[in-house]
C-alpha cells in the first residue's frame, strides 16, 4: 500500500454549525460546537484554512484530558435538600474548592502543588518527595494488559518529568472491576469478561512495574458490577527529588531534545479518545504499546544527566505526545519543531501523526546549546536515543515544519488560552438517610455473616495480586502490604512505608503511602463518599505510624458523563466535601486528576460507572523505627477501640451481603478523629502501641478478626464494652435506640482504630488519650479462638482463627 506523508488543509471557514460538529466527530477531535466556532473564527482572522496538524494540535490541547475543562469551567449548581433549593455558580470548581483549601492551609512544607507533573512536599532539609496518581481507564477496557502497563509507565514518567526529574521509589495501583467469577452470559456483547480484564491489568502493572525496578507497595481492588463495562485503573508513583532540582526553566534559543522511545502510530488520539464514550467500535489503535526496558534506560541515564546539570527543563510525553510536551514547555515563549527529525519506529507517519502520537517511553528535554553534545553522549553511552528536534523561540508562536515546509503556525496564546469556557448545569438532590430497623441476629447468624464478610470480594485477601508485584525491590519497603509476625501467615496492612536509605544516606525518615475509596457510599451520598475516602486514607497512614500533621493527599475523580447534570452535581458535592475535610484536618491536596466520561453504550443504552473519588495519601515519617503493623503481637495484651461506633450501615459491605436497604452512610467528624489521630501518633512515637489497624469495611468484627488470624492468635472481645453513640443525626425508625450486637460489630463508622497495648503500658497510653473516646474491649488470647460476646444481648460468636484466615484468604485465585 502507498502511504502519504502529506499535510492537508481542512476547509472550515465556510462550514455551517452542523458541518463543524460533523467534522469534529469524524476526525475524533472531541471538540464542541462552541469550540469549533472559536477555531473557525481564529482562522477567519488569519484569512486561511487550518492544516490537519493545526486542528489536531488544538483538539489535543483543548481535550478534557489535558485541559480539565469541566473542573475548571463554569458550573451552575443547584442543590435540593428537604424540598429547598439553593443555587451557586462556580467559575472554576477546582480553584474554588480543592485548590482553595491548599492555598488557605498554606503549608510551608508543600514545595510544589498543582503546577507540575506531580505534587512535591518536603522530605528533609535537602530533598522533597513527589507523588502522582493517574487513571488509564478507556485503554484498559479495550486492551487490559497494554492499558494498565502504559498506565503505570505513564505515571512513572510523570515522576521522571517533575521538576528536573525525581527518582521513583514506589508504585501504587487501584483497580475497580466487575466480579471475576461472573457468568459469561451476563456480560454485555463487545465487553471483555471481568476475569480477563483483571488478569490483564494485574499482568500489565506487574510486568511494567517489576521491570522498572520500582516496588508496587500499596493499592486496592474494588469490585462492583457497575465496572464491568468500564473498569477503572489507577496507577501512582512516588519519587524523591533534591530540593534544588524542583524548578524548570526554558529560555530563548534552548534546544528541544526528544529522548527514549521512537514515535509510532500507537496511541493516536489517546487524549481526545478519553472524552468519548466507549462502544464496540472504539479503536484499539488509541491504546499505546509499552516497553519498560526503554523507560528503565531513560531513567538510569537521565538521573546521571540531571546530576551533571546538563538540562534546564524536562517533561514527559504523555497524553497528546510531543504536541502536549513541547506546547507546555514553550507556551510562554514559542517553539519551532522540525517534525522530519523525530525518530520513527517505521516510515509512513503523516506529520500530524508524528506530532500527536502517544508512543511511550519518550521524554522531552530543554537543553542549552552549549550542553547539547555532552547530554547526547550521556544518553548514547547507555544506548538511549536522544535527538534534537527543534528549539525554543521568542515569537510566542508554535511553528512546525516537515521537509522544510511550514505545516503549522499558530499563536501560543490562542492555543493555550483561546478555549471558550463552557457552562454546565449541575444538580444534586440530597436524599434522606434513615437508620434501618434494628438488626436482630442470633449468634450463629452473626458468625456466618462474619465469615461471609471476610470472603467478600471487597474485604478478602488480595494476595494473589500483591505477590505478583515485586513489593520489595530497592530493599526499602519496611512496612509491607501484607503483614505478619512470621513469613508464613500475613494479613492486610493499612499502608506501606518506604525507608529511602539507598538514596538519602544516613536518613532515619520514611515515606508512608495509603489510599481510601468507597464507591458504595457514593451511590447514596457523594459528600460522605468523598469525606470518608479522605478520612480512610488518613486513618490508614496513621495506623502504621504517620503524623497526620505531615500528610498530603491527591484527588482522582472517576465519574460518568459530566454533561449529565446529576452526575456533575454529585461531582460538585464531592469537591465540596474535599474542601471541608481538607480544611478541617489541615491536610492539603498537592495534585490530582479527573477522568470523566466513564460510560459505555450498548444497543443505545447508556451505562455509567458508579462515581468514585480515590484519595491517595503520602506522608513523611520522622523515624521509620516508630512504625507498627496490624497483627496482634502477644497473648494477654489489651485491646482498645478508639473512636465512636455509630449506627452507620448505609453502603456497608454488611448491607450488601444481607440485602439490607437503607441505613445511614458513615459520616466524618474531623475534630473528633483528628484528635485521635494525633494521639495515636504520640503513642506510637513512645512505643506504646504493639499493633494498630484501621476499622473500615466490615467494621470492628472484620478488623479484629484480621488482627487475630494474621497473628495465628485468638481474641476475646466484649461487645457491650464498645463505646457507641445512640443520639444519631438521622432518626431511627422507632426512635432513638441502642445498637444491636450485629450493628456494633459491622457498622463502618469512620474515625476508629483497633489498638493492642501491653498491660504495663496501659496507664501511659490512657494518659495520652486524655479526653478522646475510647474503650477497652478485650484481650489477645492463646487459644486461637476469636470470640465476640454480649452478655446484655445473650450473644456469643466463636470462630477458630485459622477458619477465619481461610475464609478471607481463598476468594481470589485466578
Amino acid at each position, binding site marked *: 500500500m502507498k502511504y502519504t506523508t502529506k499535510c492537508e488543509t481542512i476547509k472550515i471557514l465556510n462550514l455551517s454549525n452542523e458541518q463543524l460538529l460533523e467534522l469534529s466527530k469524524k476526525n475524533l477531535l472531541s471538540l464542541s460546537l462552541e469550540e469549533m466556532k472559536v477555531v473557525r473564527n481564529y482562522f477567519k482572522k488569519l484569512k486561511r484554512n487550518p492544516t490537519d496538524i493545526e486542528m489536531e494540535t488544538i483538539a489535543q490541547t483543548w481535550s478534557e484530558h489535558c485541559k480539565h475543562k469541566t473542573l475548571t469551567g463554569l458550573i451552575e449548581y443547584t442543590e435540593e435538600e428537604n424540598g429547598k433549593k439553593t443555587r451557586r455558580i462556580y467559575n472554576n470548581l477546582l480553584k474554588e474548592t480543592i485548590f482553595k483549601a491548599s492555598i488557605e492551609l498554606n503549608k510551608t512544607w508543600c514545595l510544589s502543588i498543582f503546577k507540575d507533573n506531580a505534587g512535591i512536599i518536603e522530605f528533609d532539609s535537602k530533598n522533597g518527595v513527589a507523588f502522582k496518581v493517574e487513571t488509564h481507564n478507556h485503554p484498559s477496557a479495550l486492551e487490559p494488559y497494554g492499558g494498565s502497563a502504559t498506565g503505570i509507565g505513564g505515571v512513572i514518567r510523570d515522576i521522571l518529568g517533575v521538576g528536573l526529574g525525581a527518582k521513583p521509589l514506589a508504585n501504587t495501583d487501584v483497580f475497580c472491576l466487575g466480579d471475576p467469577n461472573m457468568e459469561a452470559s451476563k456480560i454485555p456483547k463487545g465487553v471483555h469478561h471481568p476475569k480477563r480484564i483483571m488478569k490483564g491489568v494485574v499482568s500489565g502493572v*506487574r510486568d511494567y512495574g*517489576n*521491570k*522498572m*525496578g520500582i516496588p508496587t507497595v500499596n493499592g486496592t481492588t474494588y469490585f462492583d458490577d457497575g465496572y464491568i463495562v468500564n473498569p477503572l485503573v489507577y496507577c501512582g508513583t512516588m519519587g524523591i527529588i533534591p530540593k534544588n532540582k524542583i524548578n524548570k526553566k526554558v529560555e530563548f534559543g534552548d534546544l528541544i531534545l526528544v529522548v527514549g522511545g521512537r514515535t509510532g502510530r500507537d496511541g493516536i488520539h489517546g487524549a481526545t479518545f478519553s472524552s468519548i464514550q466507549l462502544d464496540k467500535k472504539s479503536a484499539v489503535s488509541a491504546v499505546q504499546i509499552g*516497553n*519498560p*526496558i526503554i523507560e*528503565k*534506560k531513560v531513567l*538510569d541515564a537521565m538521573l546521571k544527566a540531571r546530576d551533571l546539570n546538563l538540562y534546564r527543563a524536562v517533561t514527559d510525553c504523555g497524553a497528546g505526545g510531543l504536541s502536549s510536551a513541547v506546547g507546555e514547555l514553550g507556551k510562554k515563549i514559542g517553539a519551532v519543531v522540525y517534525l522530519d527529525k523525530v525518530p520513527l519506529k517505521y516510515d509512513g507517519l503523516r506529520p500530524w501523526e508524528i506530532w500527536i502520537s502517544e508512543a511511550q517511553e519518550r521524554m522531552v528535554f530543554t537543553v542549552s546549546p552549549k550542553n547539547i553534545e555532552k547530554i547526547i553522549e550521556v544518553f548514547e*553511552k*547507555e*544506548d538511549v536515543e536522544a535527538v534534537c528536534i527543534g528549539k525554543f523561540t521568542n515569537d510566542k508562536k508554535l511553528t512546525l515544519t516537515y521537509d522544510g515546509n511550514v505545516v503549522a503556525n499558530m499563536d501560543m496564546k490562542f492555543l493555550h488560552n483561546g478555549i471558550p469556557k463552557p457552562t454546565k448545569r449541575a444538580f444534586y438532590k440530597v436524599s434522606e438517610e434513615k437508620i434501618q430497623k434494628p438488626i436482630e441476629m442470633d449468634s450463629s447468624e452473626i458468625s456466618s455473616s462474619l465469615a461471609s464478610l471476610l470472603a467478600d470480594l471487597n474485604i478478602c485477601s488480595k494476595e494473589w495480586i*500483591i*505477590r*505478583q*508485584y*515485586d*513489593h*520489595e*525491590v*530497592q*530493599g*526499602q*519497603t*519496611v512496612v*509491607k502490604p501484607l*503483614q*505478619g*509476625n*512470621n*513469613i*508464613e501467615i*500475613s494479613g492486610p496492612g493499612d499502608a506501606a512505608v518506604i*525507608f529511602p*536509605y*539507598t*538514596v538519602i544516606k544516613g536518613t532515619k525518615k520514611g515515606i508512608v503511602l495509603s489510599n481510601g475509596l468507597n464507591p458504595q457510599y457514593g451511590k447514596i451520598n457523594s459528600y460522605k463518599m468523598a469525606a470518608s475516602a479522605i478520612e480512610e486514607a488518613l486513618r490508614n497512614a496513621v495506623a502504621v505510624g504517620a503524623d497526620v500533621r505531615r500528610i498530603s493527599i491527591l484527588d482522582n475523580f472517576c465519574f460518568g458523563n459530566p454533561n449529565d447534570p446529576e452526575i456533575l452535581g454529585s461531582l460538585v458535592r464531592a469537591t465540596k466535601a474535599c474542601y471541608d475535610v481538607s480544611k478541617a484536618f489541615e491536610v492539603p491536596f498537592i495534585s490530582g486528576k479527573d477522568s470523566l466520561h466513564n460510560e459505555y453504550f450498548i444497543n443505545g443504552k447508556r451505562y455509567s460507572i458508579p462515581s468514585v473519588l480515590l484519595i491517595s495519601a503520602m506522608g513523611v515519617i520522622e523515624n*521509620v*523505627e516508630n512504625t507498627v503493623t496490624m497483627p496482634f503481637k502477644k497473648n494477654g495484651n489489651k485491646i482498645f477501640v478508639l473512636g465512636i461506633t455509630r449506627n452507620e450501615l448505609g453502603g456497608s459491605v454488611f448491607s450488601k451481603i444481607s440485602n439490607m436497604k437503607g441505613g445511614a452512610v458513615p459520616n466524618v467528624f474531623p475534630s473528633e478523629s483528628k484528635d485521635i489521630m494525633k494521639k495515636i501518633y504520640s503513642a506510637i512515637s513512645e512505643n506504646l502501641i504493639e499493633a494498630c489497624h484501621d476499622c473500615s469495611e466490615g467494621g470492628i468484627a472484620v478488623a479484629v478478626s484480621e488482627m487475630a488470624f494474621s497473628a495465628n492468635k485468638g481474641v476475646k472481645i466484649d461487645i457491650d464494652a464498645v463505646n457507641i453513640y445512640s443520639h444519631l443525626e438521622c432518626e431511627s425508625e422507632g426512635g432513638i435506640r441502642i445498637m444491636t450486637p450485629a450493628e456494633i460489630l459491622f457498622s463502618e463508622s469512620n474515625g476508629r482504630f483497633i489498638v493492642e497495648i501491653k498491660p504495663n503500658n496501659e496507664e501511659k497510653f490512657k494518659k495520652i488519650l486524655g479526653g478522646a473516646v475510647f474503650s477497652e474491649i478485650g484481650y489477645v488470647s492463646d487459644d486461637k479462638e476469636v470470640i465476640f460476646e454480649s452478655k446484655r444481648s445473650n450473644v456469643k460468636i466463636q470462630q477458630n482463627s485459622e477458619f477465619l484466615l481461610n475464609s478471607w484468604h481463598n476468594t481470589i485465585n485466578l
Partner: protein
Amino acid sequence: MKKVKTLILRTAGTNCDYETQSAFELCGAVADRVHINTLIEKKNKIFEYDILVFPGGFSYGDDIASGKILSNEIKNKLGDEIKKYALSGRPIVGICNGFQVLVKIGLLPDPKFFKQIFTLSCNDSDKFECRWVYLKVEKKVRRESNCIWTKNLPDVISLPVAHGEGKFVSGNEKFLDNLNKNSQIVFRYSLKDGSEPEYPLVPNGSIGHVAGICNKKGNIFGLMPHPERYVFTLQHPAREGFNDRYGWGKVIFQNAVDFVI
C-alpha cells in the same frame, strides 16, 4: 586498612544495583555501579576490583530467557577477562537475574568448564512471586563447603525472593550428585525448623529445593533470593535479625569483604 573494591555490573533492565551497592558499603567496601558499555570499552578495568557482582533485575527485559542476552554479551565481548577473573579466586556473586547470568555464562557450576550445564526455569506456579522464604544451610555443607559467602550463618535464615523463573532444573543426575558430594548446594528452601517445605515456601518448585549454589572452590556464588534486601532488621517482616540492627543478608556480603581483606 585496604578499601575493598566492588564492581556492580549493570545494563539495560538491571534494577537491584542501588541496594546491592548500599549493602557492600554497609560492610565497609567501596562499590561502583558500572555500565557494561564502560567495561567493554575498557576491558581491563575489571581487574581493578576485588569483588564482582551480577545484581538482580530484568537484564534486557529477560527477552528470550532470563539473563540470556546479557550472558551472551558477556561471553562474546568479555569472555576471556571474566574467565580469568573467576579463575583468579576473587569473589563473584550473582543474585536472582545475576544467578541466571552466572549459570548461562557457565561460571557455575565451574568456571573451568565455562559452559551452561543446568538452568533456572519458569516457576511451577507459572507466575512471578514476591515473598519471604526460609533457607537452610545443611550441617554437611557447613562443615565441608568451601563457599566463602555463606560462612557464619545460623542453620536457617530467611530472605525474600522475587522471580518468575527460578526453578533449578538439571537433566543430569550425575551432575546433581557431584554438587551434593562437593557440598556446593549451600542454600536449600526449607521450613523454619529446617524440615522439608512445600509450595509456597519452595516458591518455584526447584529440584532438591535448591536455592543457591557455589563452585567447588567456593569463590563464585549464585542464589535466587535477595540478601541485599535484608541487611537491616527493619527490612524483615517481623523485624528480626542480629545485634538488634542487622539482617542476615549482611553477613553474606561481609563474608566476601572480609575474605578479600
